[in-house]
């Protein structure tokens, strides 16, 4: 072998090593320890456990995508802010090298403070309160739209639907939960609505406690407002209570337009059966036309028969994807290296709507967009944006007493 061949072979070996070395190093370092913090018990237990399904289906899919192994350390917020904080501290103490969580904005805010203080990256799966990524944090990343983006997308898509069906409500009653998320959304509506030229006017705003035992008064008030449609930001149990009361009080608005969880969830569909059809949800969702979405749908059907893929599964899975992808590129579990790698994330082959997963200087994926999803025949059907839609919206909502 002459000198030229030796140099060429050396260069080739070097290049190959550059590609192989991180994987070898990662294999030697072992799986990345990821603390997944969710409200697994307490009032949000149902949704927390639904998010967990996104974790349960992840390992084989990530492996097929060529991602390194993750070791999951599970944490429970008990649906409480103070427990969220102590759970984050506990998991970091137990060796978690990256945190994921925690569905609820209040709880996520507490975890973000701990993550930043300890210098451990946090990838938020679901939480929309804008202030979380407005604090100048270096270790906090969110692949989920903020309340402002959710609302902006919602108003755009509502206008698109009104145009599509050739009709629009002139008045709406706005009902919202009075927790961190609901209050942030309510604040955003006041600021953003005038910019989007929506055709309706809010005739009454009704805030309520998400833990309320009874929402009959709220619906009586909403019905008495004479509004043509219901605009709402709710959670799961209250969405079920609101629907029951609308049926009992014989009020079918022209449309139920939700801008939060609850109305699209499997438990809502199962509990209310035929009465679950009709509500439109403007929410972060998966693009049914993307390849990864189809993989996730198949994985859910296999692991959890009868459970439809939803926002909770998709965004929790994507948080794990971000973690695995960053670990692969960083070649290290060093928190700073991981945070730096997350900052440079560019995953186009994802599931949620929008061009892919990437973060701005604040750690926010500002490219992720919402979808408009309507419950039809016990399934969630994407009706907007047009590029992702698989059906046209049913308008107006079928009357409850004629089902």
């Amino acid at each position, binding site marked *: 072998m002459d000198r030229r061949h030796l140099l060429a072979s050396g260069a080739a070996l070097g290049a190959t090593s550059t590609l192989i070395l991180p994987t070898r190093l990662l294999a030697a370092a072992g799986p990345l320890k990821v603390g997944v913090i969710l409200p697994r018990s307490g009032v949000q*237990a149902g949704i927390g456990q639904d998010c967990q399904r996104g974790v349960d289906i992840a390992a084989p899919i990530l492996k097929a995508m060529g991602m390194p192994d993750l070791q999951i350390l599970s944490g429970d917020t008990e649906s409480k802010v103070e427990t969220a904080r102590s759970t984050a501290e506990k998991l970091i103490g137990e060796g978690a090298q990256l945190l994921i969580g925690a569905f609820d904005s209040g709880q996520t805010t507490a975890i973000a403070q701990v993550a930043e203080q300890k210098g451990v990256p946090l990838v938020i799966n679901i939480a929309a309160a804008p202030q979380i990524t407005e604090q100048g944090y270096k270790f906090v990343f969110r692949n989920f739209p903020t309340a402002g983006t959710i609302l902006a997308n919602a108003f755009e898509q509502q206008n698109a639907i009104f145009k599509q069906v050739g009709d629009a409500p002139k008045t709406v009653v706005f009902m919202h939960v009075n927790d961190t998320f609901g209050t942030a959304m309510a604040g955003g509506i006041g600021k953003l609505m005038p910019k989007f030229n929506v055709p309706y006017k809010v005739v009454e705003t009704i805030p309520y406690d998400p833990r309320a035992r009874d929402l*009959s*008064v709220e619906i*009586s008030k909403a019905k008495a407002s004479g509004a043509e449609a219901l605009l709402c930001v709710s959670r799961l149990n209250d969405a*079920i209570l609101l629907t029951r009361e609308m049926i009992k009080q014989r009020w079918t608005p022209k449309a139920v337009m939700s801008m939060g969880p609850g109305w699209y969830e499997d*438990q809502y569909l199962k509990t209310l059966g035929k009465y679950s059809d009709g509500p439109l949800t403007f929410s972060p969702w998966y693009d049914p036309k993307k390849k990864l979405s189809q993989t996730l749908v198949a994985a859910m059907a296999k692991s959890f028969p009868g459970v439809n893929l939803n926002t909770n599964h998709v965004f929790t899975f994507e948080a794990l994807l971000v973690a695995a992808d960053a670990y692969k590129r960083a070649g290290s579990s060093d928190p700073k290296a991981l945070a730096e790698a997350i900052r440079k994330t560019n995953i186009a082959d994802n599931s949620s709507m929008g061009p892919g997963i990437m973060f701005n200087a604040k750690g926010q994926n500002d490219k992720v967009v919402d979808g408009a999803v309507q419950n039809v025949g016990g399934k969630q059907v994407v009706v907007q944006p047009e590029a992702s839609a698989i059906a046209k919206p049913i308008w107006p909502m079928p009357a*409850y007493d004629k089902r």
Partner: protein
Amino acid sequence: MSGGLYLNVAVSGLLTGLIYGLSALGLSVIFGVIRIVNFAHGEMMVLGMFATLVLFRALGIDPLLSLPLVAAALFAFGYLLQDLVVRRVAHLADHMQFLLMASIAVMLISVCLMLFGPDAQNAQVSYGFDSFAIGPLLVDKVRVYAGAAALVVSGLLFAFFHYTPTGKAIRACGDNYTGALVVGLNVRRLYALTFGIGTACLGAAGAIMLLLVDVHPYLGPSYTLLAFIIVIIGGMGSLPGALLGGILIGVSEALAGVILQPSLKSAFSFGLLILVLLVRPQGLLGKVAR
């Protein structure tokens, strides 16, 4: 706002209040006689709700029809709990009794969580979405049935305590423990019966409540708190007071939701509680402690 709205809301609040009152009766019965504050009150009602759910799902029994069965099961549970466990701490300081009942509450939550999972579940009856229309008044059928059942159960309870020898003996124990012992009453058995009757009330309330509220293991604490508000307003240990307190809370919460803000409903209940504590600390129908 129209008069129809207020009427609808007031009637709905009244019916809901009757059910609240029935659930609070259980707390009042136990405290009125045994002088133990049942901090596992809400969890025992949740146990009744789950028992009703099991009967509904396994045998298709309507919650209102399963009410006697669930009440009987909870009676047996309460009787044994008092006789085997609670009796043994009755002589200890109040905080020890509190710890015992709080521990039982945590255990009940854990058992329900293991058996039924964290999700909210309900019994979907055929009349679950129906309502009666009387002029401008639209009344939820489930609430009407539930309110009527609460009235019947409360009536039976009053009759038992006032017209049966056992009921009178239980009241005698509550009025004068030493005197009851002196005249030869079997206080241990009567206390167990009382605790059983208290928990049977919770079983009955649970069966009715399942028609209105989805059950999940964490539902208990909010109902414990609600029952405390009701019995303190109505008068600790007073059976009519518990029913009156329930109705007051049901109606005032409902009207506060319309007149003020729905999110202020709970604040209004607590406001009422503070007012009663300041003006009439023994409760509306309670007796001054001697």
